[in-house]
Each structure stands twice: as structure tokens, then as C-alpha cells.
């Protein structure tokens, strides 16, 4: 488990890939979650969080919410090319969160092989290193990993 402010080495820094995407646990009992937003008027849920609801478009109607840690793989590809700092091969996917948003995510916790993956498989959120920046620092982002069948409860909340 990663903790806010810790570093894995003497010189390496841990840097969040982008601000405001996820909650980084501060203790061992604290769980990570993605930060989304929900429209006060129409109930539409988005990730990442936003201010104007893209569904009803009535102005500033969205407020921040903690999202489920579970989702379903809606597509994936094992890529042999990557932006600088990422290790290939790696698994790119679209994950449909239980609240609805279909989001881009890397998949971790399984081999980057076609047989390890399938559309419709259940995955859970993990926060961890996704790549290194040009200075060799660990870039921390969200990813999803396959979960065992007895954990595949729908709408699992924190």
C-alpha cells in the first residue's frame, strides 16, 4: 500500500500523474478511490470530475463524489509501443465503472497476454506506479487489476 508522502528510494520522488483523479490512502485502513462528479440536476456521473454536466448542460451543476472501486473491462489492447517512460508490453483498456463512466485505464496484475484478458471481466482499482518521468521519478496513477470471482459484487462501494 502506498502512503502519501512516502518515497521508495533515497532520491526517487513519487509524483501523482495528474491532480484530483484519485484519493491516495493516508493510512493502512484508508482505501483508494477515484474522484468523480455527479450532477445535482440529472444525476449523471462523470470521471474525471467536472463542473458542467455534459448530459443536461445546465451550467455549474456537478459536485464531487467518491466512485466505486470496481468496474468491467469493455475493451483492451496489449500494446508494444508506448509514450516515453512506460514499459512495454502493457495492457491498455477501457473500463466501465459500476456508476457508468467508461474510462481509459492501464490493466495490471496479470500477464500482458491475450489469454489473460477478456471483455466483460471484472476489475478493481489499484493505485501505483504507472511509469517513470524523464528524471526517473515514479509517476503514480490509477490502474485496474482482475479480481477473483467471489469478489465480483456489483455496485461495491467503499
Amino acid at each position, binding site marked *: 500500500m502506498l502512503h502519501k508522502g512516502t518515497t521508495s528510494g533515497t532520491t526517487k520522488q513519487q509524483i501523482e*500523474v495528474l491532480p484530483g483523479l484519485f484519493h491516495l490512502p493516508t493510512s493502512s485502513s484508508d482505501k483508494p478511490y477515484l474522484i468523480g462528479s455527479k450532477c445535482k440536476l440529472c444525476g449523471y456521473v462523470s470521471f474525471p470530475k467536472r463542473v458542467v454536466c455534459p448530459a443536461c448542460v445546465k451550467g455549474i451543476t456537478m459536485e464531487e463524489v467518491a466512485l466505486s472501486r470496481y468496474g468491467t473491462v469493455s475493451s*483492451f489492447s496489449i*500494446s*508494444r*509501443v508506448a509514450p*516515453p517512460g512506460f514499459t512495454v508490453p502493457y495492457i491498455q483498456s477501457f473500463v466501465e465503472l459500476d456508476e457508468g463512466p467508461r474510462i*481509459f485505464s492501464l490493466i495490471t496484475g496479470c500477464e500482458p497476454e491475450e489469454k489473460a484478458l477478456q471483455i466483460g471481466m471484472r476489475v478493481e482499482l489499484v493505485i501505483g506506479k504507472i511509469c517513470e518521468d524523464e528524471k526517473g521519478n515514479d509517476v503514480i*496513477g490509477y490502474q485496474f487489476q482482475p479480481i477473483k470471482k467471489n469478489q465480483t459484487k456489483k455496485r461495491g462501494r467503499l
Partner: protein
Amino acid sequence: MRKVVIIGVGAHVCGKMLDKSLRDLGRVAIWDAISDATIDAKEIQVAYVSNSIAGLITGQEGSRGQTVLRASGLGGIPVINVENACAGGSTAFRGAYLEVASGACDIALALGVEKMFCDDTPRVVRAIASTSEIELSKMGVQFTALYAMHTRNYMQEYGLTPEHFAKVVVKNSYNGSLNPYAQHRTPLTIDQVLNSRMISDPLTLYMCASISDGAAAAILCAEDIARQYTAKPLVEVSACKLASGVFRGRSDTTIPTLSEIVAQSAYKEAGISPEDVDLAEVHDAMAPAELMEYEELGLCKKGEAARMIDEGRTKIDGDIPVNPSGGLTARGHPIGATGLYQVAECVWQLRGEAGKRQVHNPRVALVQNRGGFVEGDDAAAAVIILRRRA
């Protein structure tokens, strides 16, 4: 709105040209188009110039169009710099079209010019990634994989195999071998395509358009004065439609794709149906996209694209030739110029000037150009319908 015709097109060959600048590439396309139109360069009243990534590749972030045009002798006119990712070429064309259609100008130039090759490959990769939401590439998105994931869903829905995509590449590489403007002129076999390096499964290297340098241009003119300049067949712009991505809610596949929406509106404006199209230049940035585009453009019904390619219907001698130029995968994909290469190819085809790759007596041609990726949809898509005047 006035009727608008294309009286001249020109292009530089696509390829890797480290020794040529944007000015060099643009000059060839511009002056080929001016010669083709047989106009005096001073008669051009406005220019729309598309370029996507020069700011990151050459460092020329602002005034890109002016730097290219002045080196070709063009100045003193309004120059509008256009950036719209891989759809920039058709977006520049639209600007020039509207200038003439509205009556603001009589003669307008649309130019697309792009340099993608440089001696720093990571810079090229970053520049391409920057044409979509930059946050995505920080998260690890590789553009090929976005197409790959979409392709996987398409394969699952309609039972396609990688062989279907290889057949698209075989067709386009053959067409490219006949095109003197093409970057890749070696016909490929199905085995060569399937056995080329895997990029993002199921997409192999040869299924992906490669980076390219190039430039293409078109000169548009009010129809009522066009005969003062050219004796060549006139090519009318029957429709020119552009849109940006739409909100799609959840995984609702009943919402038409952006290219479908734009195509429907273009057919309506042109007063034709897909059956009237004699040839199409479509955006095969990745080979599977071409098959999906057959369906999006209404060239066949949903799920029938695999049969279209199996039966060879989209070859040059088929009943609805697609990408006779070789498409993005063979002709090349200098991103901000691609839409104007597509227009130029259609004009040559409609005039019967396409040489060995000539489609039999086409009357109506369609261009489909798309670019970028924002919030789960194309950033932009354009459809242009061109018709040879009797």
C-alpha cells in the same frame, strides 16, 4: 450560397524528407495547384492553411501559414491558420469553401502542410499524442491502442478476423503502388501484413498509417467565373460538412458515430444517397477504420463491411472503389495535409487524370477525414461530396 467549384489541385509526394522544410513542401503543392488552375497567383484572395504539429516539430508555433505562403510569393491577403488534428486539411478546405460560397471572395486557396519526420523520435511521438487530450497520454494512452480497442469491440460484434484488415492493406498498398504521390509503393500480401510487427493487438505495423511529410492544396472558385480560368472539367463542391465530437452518455451504441452524423448531413445537403457515390477517399489511419467507415458512410449496411472487402467491391475496378490513392496507409498521412490529399485525389479521379489508378468514369466522389480523440469521441470529422459538372 453560391455554387463553388475546384479549379486546381496540387500536392508534394508524401514521404520522409528530412532535407525539406514546410516552405519547400508547401511551395510545390501551392504552385502545382496554381498551374493546374491556370490562374495568376495574385488572383488568390484568401488562404486557409492547415498544419497540426509544426510548433512541436520545427518550433514554428505561430504564423505558420504566413511563413509558408510568403515563401511561395503569396502575401497581402487574409491568411487563416487552421489546426484540427488529422482533420485539419478538410477543415481548411471548408474555410476556403465558405469564403467563396458566401460571396466574400471569388478565389480561395486551401493548403495542408505537415512535417512529421525529424531526428528526435520521442518528440514526434509526443507531438502526435498532443493532438488528442494531453492528459490521456500522461495516463499511458497510445493512439494506435485507441483504434485497437475499438477494433476489438467491432470484431466481437460482427465476427471479423485480422485477415479482413490485412485485405484492406493489400488493396491500399496495391493502389499506392500506382500513385506517384504515395509514400509506400510496394504491394503487400496478406501474410506480410499479418506477420509484420505487432503494434497494439490486433493491429500490426502495416495496418497502421506511418508518419509522413507532405503538402496538398486546392483552389476554389465561384462557379460563374470559373470558365474564365480553366478548360478542364469543373468539380463542384456539393457538400462540405464538419462537426466535433458529441456527448455519448454511456455505452449506448445506438447513437450514430460522428462520421455517420456528418455523412448523413452531407448526403442531405448534396441531395444524393450513398448509392450515388462512385468513389471514396476515407480516413484509414488504421486499416480496420476503413471497414467501419464503409458502414458509417452508408456504402454498405452495418456488419457488411467484411463482405465488401472479401468480395473486392472497393478495389479500383470494384463497384465502389475506396482509397484509390492508397489511402492513409499507403499514400501517407501527413496529418494536417491528409484531408487535402483526399480532395486532390478525388479531383484527379473525377477529371479522369488519375493514370493507372483511374476509377472508371466517376461522377460523384466522397472525402471522409477525421482527427483527434476527446472524451471518447473523434475531436473532429468532415465529409466532403464532390461532383463532376457535365
